[in-house]
């Protein structure tokens, strides 16, 4: 499973929305994720990929695509399948 699908799974599990409605253009508001959902997703993503996402970086995510791109940019090349 690629990075985008893994993050989508995490977000769908936490917000309990249908995974199919999450696109790269989806904002957190559109998928009805409140601040706690977002923080839980950040923690879960950090644990899954073994990275740290500083708050100042997370605050710049405008949509799901930004989140995915950021995580991909932080991973070693071989993991970005």
């Amino acid at each position, binding site marked *: 499973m690629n990075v985008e699908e893994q993050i989508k799974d995490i977000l769908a599990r936490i917000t*309990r929305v249908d995974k199919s409605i999450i696109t790269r253009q989806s904002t957190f508001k559109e998928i*009805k994720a*409140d*601040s*706690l959902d977002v*923080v*839980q997703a*950040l*923690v879960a993503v950090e644990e899954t990929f073994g990275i740290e996402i500083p*708050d100042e970086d997370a605050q710049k995510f405008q949509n799901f695509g930004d989140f995915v791109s950021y995580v991909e940019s932080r991973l070693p090349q071989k993991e970005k399948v």
Partner: protein
Amino acid sequence: MENKNTVQNGRVRVAVDAMGGDYAPEEIVKGAVLAAKKEDVEIFLVGPPKLLQQELAKCKVSNGSYVHIVEASEFIKENESPVDVIRRKPNCSVAVAAKMVKSGEADALYSAGSSGAVAISAIQFIGMLDGVYRPALVGSLGSFAPDTVMVDLGANVDCKPDQFLTFAIAGSVYAKRFLNIADPKIALLSTGSEETKGNQVVREAYSLLKSSGLNFVGNIEGGDILNGRANVIVCDGFVGNVVLKFYESIGGYAQVWTEQKLRKHPPLRALARLLFKSLFPATKISGETEKQSGGILWGVDGVVKIAHGASRARQIANGIESAKEAVKAGVVESMKSELARFNQGGKS
């Protein structure tokens, strides 16, 4: 680790957030010491050890016997975001107390700190029961409507429609366990009895409740809250909290109004004062009984009790006592089994 929720040696182990509350740690420690005088409880005070040892010394209790200190150097201040518990202070006092419940080192968490921080600690570090999104606060309406509970009373200001289902299940478990109602009638609080009344979330919740298999009797309006039409009144935490505080204020305002009206008739005024004094504690919405402060967070995979921030030692002791009783009553196990029956399509 799994939440074992096992009572050790006949004593219920309560992890107390010693740094949460307007009068923490002094009143929390005093309350914990009072509570620990009972033979069936063991207290773990979570906070900075040096500070807690000083407070225990004031109570002439050393760290030992059935009051223990568990180290947590940080705590959440009132002006901090509750979400900070997860990202910035995962080892603060309330988080450490929650982790003790998760690991099985404690049977219950008790805190008078920020409600949001307690709820977030419970969600993140203990976890929710299967099928429950967020915890809810349930309360009985007391003497005016002794067979009625409301849920949610303020834990969830913005709700998704399916949360109302778990609110209904939590309310049903409460009504069965604490009010001895075999098959509680569940109603949705709305602006009219028709299915089409209410905002979008309430209308969607109506559809879900109608097809849920629960004992759903439809919408009720504000005027029906006290008339017994429903045993479980379901609403979002915004509405529930407004109703709760309005309801709790009625007694005081009614007394002032009545005494003003009778100011030219001193004997009647004195009689009215006497009547109000004996009757109007009835308007306090309770956790399980009037003497207890705060409420249980329903839907968490462990007993979590939130106290009012302004609680003093006596209320803290009562709250710890009620957390202990909730463990003994098996409220989490009851909620689990109701959810399991519901998820399997059975009637809750």
